[in-house]
């Protein structure tokens, strides 16, 4: 099996996975922001496709999603944005969204066709995955799609050579972890703490426990939820993670608006440096 784009992004040392909401505050800004993150050292960019009911997000990202929707972000515009970015951004782009927008894409057409034929309307996630692959997306993260419901999306991702990333929570049982790892690809998203996304001032103890349980997989492990500072990134990578995922800390900068691109670049650089510090603390034999 050949290594996927996402796995490859973790190959040269600890990775910085960054997240921003597509279309917040508008499409042109998002392009600038993504380029700035990559200049600052981001190895993967998660682009949020906004959904009106973001139940896994804290206040920072909830507000960003609202801004993006109010500014007119749609799945079509999202795909155009991805295709445009692909022209000069060469790190993998991941689509982070909820199941309903994926599922609805193309369903409208299927519905009018099926009204005529009388058959069931649902097309499933395939049309959106196909379009995303075409636009240049490397994988999906869908927080309201646990492994048990992931069959159709996983199939579509495989058909188009994309990764489906699963999230491991502090509450995840070993039994569920096994089921997840048997389907996971790209990297494993380790949710560092319970709750929703949002910048925090410390690293949760639970992160280390979660990482310990992931020894059994060769996939890269990236920790997210609450990371906002150089020291967090250092601590997490020193603790055995292959990367850190940072969202709200970047989205806060976007929300503030002033010199956003420059500050995003600087923040990415700071976090990436933290991750590199952490890697230098990891004893040799444990590094792969």
């Amino acid at each position: 099996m050949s290594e996927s784009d996402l796995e490859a992004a973790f190959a040269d040392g600890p990775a910085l996975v960054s997240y921003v909401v597509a279309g917040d505050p508008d499409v042109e800004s998002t392009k600038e922001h993504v380029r700035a993150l990559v200049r600052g050292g981001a190895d993967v960019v998660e682009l949020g496709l906004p959904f009106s009911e973001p139940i896994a997000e804290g206040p920072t990202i909830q507000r960003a999603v609202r801004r993006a929707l109010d500014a007119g972000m749609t799945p079509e515009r999202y795909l155009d944005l991805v295709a445009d970015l692909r022209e000069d951004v060469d790190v993998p782009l991941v689509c982070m969204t909820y199941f309903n927008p994926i599922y609805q894409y193309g369903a409208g057409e299927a519905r009018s066709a099926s009204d005529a034929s009388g058959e069931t309307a649902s097309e499933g996630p395939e049309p959106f995955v196909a379009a995303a692959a075409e636009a240049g997306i490397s994988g999906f993260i869908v927080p309201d799609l646990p492994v048990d419901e992931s069959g159709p999306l996983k199939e579509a991702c495989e058909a188009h050579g994309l990764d489906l990333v699963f999230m491991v929570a502090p509450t995840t049982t070993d039994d569920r972890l096994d089921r997840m790892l048997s389907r996971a690809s790209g990297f494993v998203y380790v949710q560092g703490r319970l709750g929703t996304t949002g910048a925090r001032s410390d690293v949760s103890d639970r992160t280390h426990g979660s990482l310990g349980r992931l020894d059994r997989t060769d996939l890269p492990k990236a920790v997210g939820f609450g990371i906002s500072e150089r020291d967090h990134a250092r601590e997490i990578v020193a603790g055995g993670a292959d990367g850190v995922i940072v969202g709200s800390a970047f989205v806060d900068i976007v929300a503030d608006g002033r010199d956003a691109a420059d500050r995003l670049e600087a923040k990415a650089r700071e976090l990436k440096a933290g991750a590199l510090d952490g890697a230098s603390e990891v004893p040799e034999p444990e590094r792969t």
Partner: protein
Amino acid sequence: MSSESKFGEYGGQYVPEALMPAIEELTDAYERYVLNNEDGFVDEFRERLADFGGRPTPLQRADRLSERYDREVYLKREDLVHGGAHKLNNALGQVLLAKYMGKERIIAETGAGQHGTATAMAAAHLDIDCEIYMGRTDINRQRPNVFRMRIHDAEVNPVTAGSGTLKEAINATMRDWATNVEDTHYVIGSVVGPHPFPKMVRDFQSVISEEAREQIREKAGRLPDSVVACAGGGSNTMGAFHEFVGDEDVDLLAVEAGGSGLTIDEEAGLAPHSASLSAGEEGVLHGARTKLLQNPDGQILESHSVSAGLDYSGVGPELAHLVDEGRVRPVNVGDDAALEAFHRLSKLEGIIPALESSHALAYLERAALGDADDDLGEVVVVNVSGRGDKDLDTVIEESDSRDIDAAPSMEVFQSE
């Protein structure tokens, strides 16, 4: 397990991974305690429903409505359940289950405030900490219920996102649950959400049709021709229908809130109604695949109804399935018709119905006397899901601004 979690293609468990172990634990507890009566759970539940909850509720023949509509009209009096609505059936069941599961804290969302009140009441009764999330708009239109929750020592957390109604309150409660899942049970308020909630809530509510089926046989000597219930999330609906689903000759009518019309303002992302069974499309919201009010991009639309308890963009997956199967017929009535029906029942029968229940009563008027030309048959059971005391502020204001014919005038009582 995953096949049982669905009703046809509806239902399922679409929630963040952090919640999945809790949902598996709940599924296990549901099967053991609720389905298999382990440790006598069901016996205790029934006993508490009787002694604390005031069950069984009467099935009352409505004499003047029967005369008006020229058929036998029976009212299932869920307004007489302790707390004033069917919501206690479910809240008591879930809070008790949370105790059996050893949880230390319960949380709930509420729209009309009836579910929040019932949960706060059950939590006080069973001595467990309780926090309720409620949309800002709903807090403003259901103030008496907010105070009732506070009386029972529940925290009430206002939710300001979106239009500040039930959908946003559910989002907020899910976020709390994802944070505190290890010691907290989420008492969801209707037959919505991830499996096992839709089945479990239906089971707790099906006491309504269990009683009604017996009672109508006694009183009318036969099964009804139709059962009519309002549908928001659909818990009083499924409760009133469940034991009749196998009786093919009994028509089941789910009356949705037609609001101010069934159109959709896509520009504003708003549906001026909450008729997701009649006008929704299949999608995934709050943990389940079901019929939803959404735009073609899959963004959920804000719903509207004069009645807070029906103001929701989704509906229970089992109802969506029964509608597709042709077993349940979705119909709807508008805000004005519901207000008229509110005053009509108060005047003719001496019962003040909840604005939610008023929708079911309004459909009766339309089917028997209005433009619907719908033969409900000779014997009709209408579920009066709750009492309307909580709605008086809304009714005074809305009756005035809309010129509702049946409304009494308060003008002479205006303070000088």
